[in-house]
């Protein structure tokens, strides 16, 4: 186990390094610079600015100082908002995005698993059909369409919930619904199909023959085995939710990371682009690592490392 974690940790560092390098290359491939805009800047001022931000140095030197900034986790000040450092932006925006993302994934997991399980238990019943209809709709409707519809109906027409911004738990409801519907639908479908398969297994029949209560059979014997596919897709789903937050945050005017992320690219705000990208990828890689660990915990047959002498 220890060996595995060390190995995975090294791989995580390599992954982040590759992402950082790609980001750097792509960033400099985009035409334009932070100081090119509608207004033309005085060439001397521009030269001075470039010197200040060390943009006049050759690319490989910039690359090295960029790597250094990753290691020290200090990305310096933003170019567009000189009085704020990238770390400040991260500290302000990330907790909000994190909150939105985590609440979404929790809601999606809970409702998806419950819905899928009930659908499987009532296979070909009314609840099953309802759940699967919902799942198809949930998968097909993009979250930004859902978001605007929700705002239109629940916030504007019926005035039940706040339409935008981020200040109370009530403000969370609409963006979380918009963001969680797709993943909920996918999880429900997956849970249902693998649950249906697990329920026909001999060990479930054996659990019944033991005279255990149905609740115990479902939770202890069936669910654990049925959740394996769900855990498998959790990693990619997480990435989807993270990027989904960018769009949803824009629609609901939530002051999360998404705003800075998108703006920084439009503005060629190099330090912010680099900081947010590296931070996000590091976060995602770490979450995938957690998912892999959970996998091994759920199913003892999955060995996270190969024992010496094992074939």
């Amino acid at each position: 186990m220890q060996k595995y974690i060390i190995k995975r940790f090294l791989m995580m560092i390599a992954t982040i390094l590759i992402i950082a390098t790609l980001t750097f290359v792509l960033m400099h491939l985009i035409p334009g610079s932070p100081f090119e805009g509608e207004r033309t800047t005085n060439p001397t001022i521009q030269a001075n600015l470039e010197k200040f931000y060390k943009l006049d140095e050759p690319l490989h030197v910039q690359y090295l100082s960029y790597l250094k900034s990753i290691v020290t986790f200090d990305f310096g000040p933003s170019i567009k908002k000189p009085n704020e450092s990238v770390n400040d932006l991260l500290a302000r925006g990330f907790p909000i995005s994190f909150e939105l993302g985590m609440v979404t994934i929790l809601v999606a997991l809970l409702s998806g698993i419950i819905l899928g399980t009930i659908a499987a238990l009532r296979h070909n019943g009314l609840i099953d059909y309802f759940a699967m209809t919902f799942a198809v709709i949930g998968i097909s409707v993009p979250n930004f369409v859902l978001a605007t519809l929700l705002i239109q109906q629940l916030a504007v027409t019926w005035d039940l919930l706040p339409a935008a911004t981020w200040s109370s738990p009530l403000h969370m409801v609409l963006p979380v619904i918009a963001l969680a519907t797709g993943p909920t639908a996918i999880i429900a479908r997956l849970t249902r199909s693998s649950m249906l398969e697990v329920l026909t297994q001999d060990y479930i029949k054996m659990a019944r023959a033991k005279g255990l209560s149905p609740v115990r059979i479902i939770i202890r014997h069936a669910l654990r085995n049925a959740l394996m596919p769900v855990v498998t897709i959790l990693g990619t789903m997480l990435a989807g939710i993270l990027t989904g937050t960018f769009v949803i945050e824009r629609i609901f005017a939530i002051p999360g990371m998404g705003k800075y992320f998108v703006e920084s690219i439009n503005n060629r705000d190099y330090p912010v682009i680099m900081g947010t990208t590296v931070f996000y990828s590091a976060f995602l890689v770490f979450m995938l690592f957690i998912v892999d660990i959970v996998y091994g915990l759920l199913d003892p047959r999955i060995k996270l490392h190969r024992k010496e002498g094992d074939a």
Partner: protein
Amino acid sequence: MNEHQLDHAKEQIKERVDEVDKSLPVGTSGVQKNRKKSKKVRSDVKVLQVNNLQVSFRTYGGEVEAVRGVSFDLHQGETLAIVGESGCGKSVTSNAIMGLIPKPAGIIKNGRVLFKGKELTNMSKPQLRKIQGVDISMIFQDPMTALNPTLTIGEQLTEGLRTHKKVSKQDAKQKAIEMLELVGIPNPTERLKQFPHQFSGGMRQRIVIAIALICEPELLIADEPTTALDVTIQAQILELFEEIQQKTDISIILITHDLGVVAKIADRIAVMYAGKIVEIGDKRAIFYTPEHPYTKGLLNSVPRLDLVEEELQPIEGTPPDLFSPPQGCPFTARCPYAMEVCDHVYPSTTTKSDTHAVDCWLQDERAKVLQELS
């Protein structure tokens, strides 16, 4: 260990030779006498009574009449083997007794299952759960799939006990260790923490047996318990059954299509065909004096080590379609002795002795006259 196995195999062969060979008068075989010294007198206590049990399944293609009126009694400490080919209703019968018929597709259309006088077929599910696993236990065919891969052996052993009998975690664990010792698993204390994939097939079947026996049931239903195992392990598991039965006086229903297994541990045999018991009797009666042509066919289709015969004799044809079971005897189409009447009317049961009964028209007085004439 090897020597032991060899001895054991020899013993088995001897036993088979003795039991199947009809030329020997009953009881003259010395080997058999010695081996069977502990075979008990049949108890008068009826643990299980099955009366005219009928089970059907609703499918897209129509209704399948899987079990069509099965009746038998099971006495305390007795082993009844239900034999027959695939699809004859053996497993459905055992599932019906156990209350494991999948609803809503499967329905018990008729009949009674009395366990120590209590009717099981109309019991509510919570009531039934107080009997399942406690008084009646079941062993499944494939030990590779019967254990939950994600739970430890210890948990799977103790959960039944902890659900049904209010025992402490520590006591349950102690009992689990005892059970593992009983079924012959070394280092039981350490093994409790392991998962099913860390055991071999034979070991897993021992664990399945331990799980079935941990609540000390009075009736054990074993649905092809050795089919998925190789021959040496099979023999060990059968020994284990005999040993347990001697210790606990448990009644066993053994579902199998392996007559070798039957010869080894059954006291009585019920032969099933197309959802009906066509012949039932003592092991001796069924092996030495089978009356039903199907039973005879079954016995003839078993490879025998004692005869240098060239070929096996299979029963030609296939069993009838249970979507629309025949009116008369279902074996008519494959029966070499079939008569006109067989096609139209199901024969009534002829009692050959206290324990031996057969459903066949050949037993009818008129048929006997006919046979003598021809």
